[in-house]
C-alpha cells in the first residue's frame, strides 16, 4: 500500500492562490456544482502537489475532483478557462428567469386574477394553423380565464386560477402520489411469514433446538416505490391546461421519491431539476416559462423518440409507470408515434394517457396521433377537472 497522501494542504500554497481557489469553488457552486469543504481541501492538496507546476495537468485533475455528473463534466472546461484565464464569466447556466425576477412574477401568479397584463406571466398563446377550433383565441382566452368571474363559472381545469383551487390541485396530486408509491420489488426482508426461508436466521434460531429448524424465519418481498415519469404536452392546443398540469407535475415530483418530469412541444425538455426547487412558486413559474411553445405544432412522435433514445435507460425500469398528458394532436407522422409508443411499451410497466379533451362532450379520439397511440396505452383517461383526476386513484393504486 502506498503511503498516505500529503494531507497538509497549507504548505506551499500562498494566500493569493488560496483566495483564487476559494473563488473558483464559489464559481463552480454558482454554476450548480456540488462543491463542499472536502473538495476544496483536496483541491488545495492538488495545488501543492507536483501536478500544479503544469497547468495542462491541473485542469484534468481538478475536473476529476470537482465533477460529479456528465453535465458537470461537459461544462467544466468552459468554467475553468473562464475563471483561470480571466474571461470573467460568472454564470454559465442560462435558465429562464433569475430568482429575483421570478419571485416577483410569482406573486403575480399567486394573485392571478387581479391584473394580468404582466411580462412575468408565461403566455401560452401559440398559434397552430388548422387543427382544433378555438386555438387562435387561446392566448386571449387564458387571460380572461384568470378572471374571478369565469373561474366561478366552471370547474374545468382550464379555469383554475384561484389560489384555493390551486392548493386543492396540489393536495390531490400529493394524494395520488401517495397511493401509487408502494410497489413490489425483488429485495426481500425477514418476516414471520413469507415465501422463502431465511436460512441465516433459521440456523441461528435452530442452535437451541440442537440444529433442528423448529423455528423458521422467512423472507418476503419488500414494498418498494413505483417510479413515475410524466411527459407533459405543452403545445398550443394544450395551452389552456398547461398551467394547471405544471402545478400537478410539481405535486407529483414533490411527493414521489422517484419521479421524472418532461415537457414537450416540438422538442423534449427534462424539467425534473427545475421542479425540485424548494420554492414551489418559483419552480412552477420557471417551468411555465420553459413550457412555452416555440410554435410549429406538437411533435409527439419525435419527442417520444428523443425520450426513447436519451432518457429511457436512465429513467424507466420495469416498475415505472409512464404518464403522458396530451391531447394527441400530432403534427408529425402518426406512424412514427406508433413506433415510438411500441418501443416505450417494452420498457415500462404501464402507460397512462391523460387527455383533457375526453372530458369535452362528443369527443372521440379521432386525431391520427391518438389513433396510432391507442393500442399501446393501458389506461386512456380524461383529465379536464379535479374529479376526473381523482377518479384515477383506484386504478393507479392497483398498477
Amino acid at each position: 500500500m502506498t503511503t498516505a497522501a500529503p494531507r497538509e494542504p497549507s504548505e506551499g500554497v500562498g494566500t493569493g492562490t488560496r483566495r483564487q481557489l476559494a473563488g473558483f469553488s464559489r464559481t463552480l457552486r454558482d454554476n450548480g456544482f456540488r462543491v463542499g469543504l472536502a473538495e476544496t481541501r483536496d483541491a488545495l492538496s492538488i495545488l501543492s502537489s507536483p501536478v500544479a507546476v503544469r497547468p495542462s495537468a491541473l485542469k484534468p485533475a481538478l475536473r476529476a475532483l470537482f465533477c460529479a455528473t456528465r453535465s458537470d463534466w461537459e461544462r467544466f472546461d468552459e468554467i475553468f478557462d473562464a475563471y483561470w484565464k480571466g474571461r470573467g464569466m460568472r454564470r454559465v447556466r442560462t435558465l429562464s428567469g433569475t430568482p429575483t425576477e421570478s419571485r416577483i412574477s410569482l406573486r403575480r401568479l399567486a394573485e392571478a386574477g387581479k391584473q394580468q397584463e404582466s411580462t412575468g406571466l408565461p403566455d401560452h398563446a401559440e398559434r397552430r394553423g388548422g387543427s382544433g377550433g378555438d386555438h387562435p383565441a387561446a392566448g386571449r382566452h387564458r387571460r380572461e380565464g384568470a378572471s374571478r368571474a369565469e373561474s366561478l363559472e366552471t370547474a374545468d381545469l382550464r379555469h383554475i386560477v384561484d389560489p384555493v383551487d390551486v392548493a386543492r390541485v396540489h393536495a390531490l396530486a400529493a394524494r395520488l402520489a401517495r397511493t401509487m408509491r408502494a410497489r413490489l420489488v425483488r429485495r426481500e426482508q425477514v418476516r414471520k411469514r413469507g415465501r422463502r426461508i431465511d436460512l441465516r436466521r433459521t440456523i441461528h434460531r435452530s442452535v437451541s433446538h440442537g440444529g433442528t429448524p423448529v423455528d423458521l424465519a422467512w423472507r418476503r418481498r419488500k414494498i418498494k416505490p413505483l417510479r413515475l415519469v410524466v411527459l407533459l404536452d405543452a403545445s398550443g392546443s394544450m395551452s389552456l391546461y398547461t398551467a394547471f398540469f405544471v402545478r400537478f407535475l410539481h405535486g407529483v415530483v414533490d411527493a414521489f421519491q422517484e419521479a421524472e418530469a418532461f415537457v414537450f412541444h416540438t422538442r423534449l425538455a427534462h424539467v425534473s431539476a427545475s421542479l425540485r426547487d424548494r420554492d414551489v412558486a418559483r419552480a412552477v413559474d420557471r417551468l411555465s416559462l420553459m413550457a412555452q411553445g416555440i410554435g410549429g405544432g406538437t411533435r409527439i412522435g419525435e419527442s417520444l423518440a428523443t425520450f426513447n433514445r436519451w432518457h429511457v435507460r436512465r429513467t424507466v425500469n420495469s416498475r415505472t409507470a409512464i404518464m403522458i398528458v396530451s391531447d394527441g394532436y400530432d403534427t408529425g407522422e402518426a406512424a412514427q408515434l406508433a413506433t415510438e409508443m411500441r418501443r416505450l411499451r417494452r420498457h415500462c410497466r404501464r402507460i397512462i394517457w391523460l387527455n383533457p379533451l375526453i372530458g369535452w362532450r362528443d369527443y372521440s379520439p379521432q386525431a391520427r396521433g391518438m389513433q396510432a397511440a391507442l393500442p399501446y396505452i393501458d389506461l386512456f383517461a380524461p383529465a379536464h377537472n379535479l374529479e376526473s383526476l381523482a377518479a384515477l386513484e383506484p386504478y393507479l393504486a392497483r398498477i
Partner: protein
Amino acid sequence: MGENFVNVTREHISDRLAEVGYVADRDLATALWLMEFLKRPLLLEGEAGVGKTEVAKALAAVHKAELIRLQCYEGLDQNAALYEWNYQRQLLAIKAREGAGENADAIEEHIFSEKYLLERPLLAAIRRPTPPVLLVDEVDRADEEFEAFLLELLSDFQVSIPELGTIKAISIPRVVLTSNGTRELSDALRRRCLYHYIDFPDVDREARIILTRLPGIDTTLALQVARMVGAIRKEDLRKVPGVAETLDWTATLAGLDVHELQHEPERVHETMICLLKTHEDRARLTREVTDRLLGKVA
C-alpha cells in the same frame, strides 16, 4: 512496494497502462494518479462498450494487485455482496457437537466463527494483506439501500457482522465504480468519488488500441478500421458499437485477409455483423450506406 503513484507523473501511468494493454487518454491517467494521491474512489461513466471495466482490470495489472469484482444487479443485498454464513457446515457442526454433548452457547460461539464465514467481494476486498483493486461494476443497477451501504463502507472501510463484531480493513482497496446511467446515483456517492467520463476513443486512440490488442494487424488497416468505426458511430444507431466490437471486427477482417477496406466493400459489408447487434441497425446500414462511409473513410 515500490509502486508509488504520487511520485510518478501521469505520463508514466499512461505508459504503464499501455504496457499492460490499455491505451488511456491523458485525462484518465490524471484521474488515476489523483485516485492514488487523494485516496478517493473513482466513478467512471460512459456509454456501454467504451471500456470502463477494462480500466479496473488495467489498474489491477499496473499495481500487480488482485482484482475483486462485484457485479451489481437489482435486489443485490449484503448477503451477496459482503458475507454469508456457510449453512451446510453450520448444520453439520451443530449436529456433531450436540452428539458430543456440548452446550448450546458453546455451539453457537463455534458456528459463528471465522471458520464458517464465506467472504463475498466487499469483505474480501478489505481483508487482503495487499490492497486489491475493487471493481463495483454497474453500481446504478443496485438499489438505493445498497448504495447507502456502499457509501458507508467506502468512507469507514470497516463493516460490522452482528455475530462476529466489527471487522476493520487490513488494507484500503483501490475502488473503481462504473455506471451506465440506468438510474441516477445519489449526490452523496458522487461526491465521495472522483469522476471521469469515458467517451468513445478518437480515431487515433482507437487505432492504437487495435494495434496494442491485436499485434499482428498492420497499421494501415488499423487506422482504416478506426476511421470507419468512427464514421459508423456517427450514424443514427440503436446500439453504438463499442471498442470490443471494433476489435472483433478487425480480427475478422484480418482473418479474411482484408488489407484495404475500399478494395473489398463486399467483405466489409458482410462482416459488419460484428459491429451491429440489432436487426434495426443492420437494416439501417445498407450496402449503399456502407459504400458511402467507405468513400469518406478512404
